[in-house]
């Protein structure tokens, strides 16, 4: 692989090392654009803007590769890096939310100084390496007449990867696959595989499960002043029907209604003549959302059904 990279990196030296006019025009346009993209990526406050600047750099690099007679590398750069990898980045960044910006507060002490020193060092190394390459290494086998069948760069690249360096190439891909599968295994480790309920199971659950006790089910001809699930039903003796109390909804705790019930009972005298409508439930705004009648009928006709 390294040979292939070196081969492609040396591409501008085609034809005796002279740059054509078109090539230099392209370079002087795309170079600054790529550089601006890099700077923009570093200095943009918004994460998605950073990603977009990086996309611009990658696109300019891709076009530069194409200009330097490496069209395959150029388009692969665009498809793989811009199309797939950066798209995944943007995908994740969008999930974070569009207002998530970088914090300006420095967390690590002396981090900027260290970063500056190391950055300058890295830059020096890169410049030295490139300078060395330009002066000492001669370009080999570029141009359309290169390759075993003399059919150009793409074919030569294919031959290199799939014939001369097949084993390293396959090993690399095996490594990548292993990494991807490993990441997925880690993601799902510890989560037992839940069986997804079918549509029918979900309907039965809704109608028969813990939610079955309430809902707007007042039939035709029912007169009800409170339809709220927060209003419990009264049994004929004036006590609250236990079946009408929800285990899930917090607003209907039994204790909160004690005063209410006592109030009703004291108002209407004998227990037999309790007016169910006098019970106000937790909140007046809930009145009219469900059927009290339902709760009442459920209490007394449970056995009959």
């Amino acid at each position, binding site marked *: 692989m390294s040979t292939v990279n070196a081969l492609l990196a040396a591409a501008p030296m085609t034809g005796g090392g002279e740059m054509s006019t078109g090539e230099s025009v392209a370079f002087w346009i795309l170079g600054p654009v790529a550089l601006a993209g890099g700077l923009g990526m570093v200095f943009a406050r*918004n994460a*998605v*803007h950073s990603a*977009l600047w990086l*996309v611009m750099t990658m*696109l300019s690099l891709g076009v530069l590769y194409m200009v330097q007679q490496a*069209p*395959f590398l150029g*388009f*692969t750069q*665009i*498809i793989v890096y*811009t*199309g*797939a990898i950066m*798209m*995944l980045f*943007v*995908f994740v960044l*969008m*999930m974070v939310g*569009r207002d998530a910006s970088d914090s300006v507060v420095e967390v690590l002490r002396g981090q900027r100084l260290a970063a500056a020193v190391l950055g300058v060092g890295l830059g020096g190394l890169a410049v030295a390496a490139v300078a060395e390459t330009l002066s000492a290494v001669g370009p080999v086998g570029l141009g359309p007449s290169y390759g075993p069948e003399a*059919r*150009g*760069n*793409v074919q030569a690249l294919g031959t290199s990867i799939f014939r001369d360096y097949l084993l390293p190439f396959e090993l690399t891909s095996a490594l990548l696959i292993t990494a991807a599968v490993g990441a997925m295994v880690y993601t799902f480790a510890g989560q037992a595989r839940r069986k997804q309920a079918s549509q*029918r199971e979900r*309907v*039965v659950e809704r*109608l*028969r499960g813990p939610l079955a006790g309430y809902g707007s*089910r007042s*039939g035709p001809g029912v007169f009800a002043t409170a339809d709220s699930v927060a209003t419990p039903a009264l049994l004929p003796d004036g006590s609250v029907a236990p079946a009408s109390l929800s285990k899930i909804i917090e607003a209907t705790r039994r204790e909160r209604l004690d005063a209410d019930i006592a109030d009703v009972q004291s108002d209407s005298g004998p227990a037999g003549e309790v007016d169910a409508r006098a019970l106000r439930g937790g909140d007046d705004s809930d009145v009219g959302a469900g059927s009290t009648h339902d709760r009442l009928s459920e209490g007394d006709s449970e056995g009959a059904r």
Partner: protein
Amino acid sequence: MNPVPPPGYTQSLIADDPFWLTLIKVLVIFVLLMLITLFMIWFERRVVGRMQQRPGPNWNGPFGLLQSLADGLKLAFKEDIRPVLADKAVFFIAPVLSVVPAFVAWSVIPLGPEVSIFGEQTALQLTDLPVGVLVVLACSSIGVYGIVLAGWASGSPYPLLGSLRSAAQVISYELALGLSIIAVVLYAGSLSTADIVAAQSTGWYVWLLPVSFMIFAVSMVGETNRAPFDLPEAESELVGGFHTEYSSLKFALFFLAEYVNMVTLSAVATTLFLGGWMAPWPLSLIPGVNEGWWPLLWFFGKTLAFLFVYVWLRGTLPRQRYDQFMRLGWKLLIPVSLVWLMLVATLRVLRTELTTGQILVVGGIALVILVGAALLIPDQAPPEEDKEPPVITDYPVPPLDLAVPETPKRRRRAVAGKRDDQQATETVGAGTSGEGDR
């Protein structure tokens, strides 16, 4: 038929085009795509209208042909609204990013063979790169940025959901698309579109690689966000999807991009699988039919057939649920195309190393082993019978095993006075069901 040009011939033919010729080609392709878009909008509305038993637009111009022009003008003069929460720069860039790649992809589509334009020998194709097919893939992967950024920059939840869907959708379906192209490239031995067309002069790849063609056809619908895979702009779920907040010319650009993408992928499918500009079979027997300007007719005819299928799908199929759509992509299309690719590659190697007889013998032995292995698999248990769901409601609904009671004797006799006996027994059922029909 004209002799097949050698690989790379078109490339050298186009390479010495003068500048003015390239400019003319660029202009013609641009104008052509704009016109095709206008035509497609009209075509889609007419065809869907016909499928739904109504005339469709028929008021402006002959057959309503100028309807889309009128709509486009109206769209351009509408107010351009930008939401307060929108990210200004990205909101502006997004529509441009989605339109430009759609047009660029057309630069590598071969529209026809060698012709002479103003005395200059050239091919009906803007440029022929040795990696032509990759240009199409690269353009579609850049085009997604337009949709994704549009949703993000709108600063509104529905567009964001639409763009998230779109990102996941295009990444998934681009894999299947790329894998189906690989088989074609394996057989053509070149990534150049002109060479792929030339390689099909002996037979179209749709016959040689039917599985690849089917996978390509399905994933190109997913790639263009068209019904039944139009989840990024599902009207019933996301208002308008990624372009909910867009209006005026910016919206028009998205509209344009969608239609140009459709035309582009149809043209690519034509190039890769239907022999590009070559005439279909009975016509291809006529000499001279694949020369000069005639191939343009065959090319656009085939492309239009694909576009018709797009419209047909939209008029026929309901939108898929998102999880079904993802399952189709990842669990069906990609595995199938991987297996198919292995088969094709194996066959290619065998073809170069063995004779046809040897291949048949080896294939026959493999088939026998496969059938034998299939016999060893135990029979599947018969599926449990689907029982009626239990009645779980308090409403007075009729029992599920309801039998219509017989008509009482006295009434039957009275009815029989007017009609015959058999009709009378049916009146009970007919009385209720007939009500709904009316």
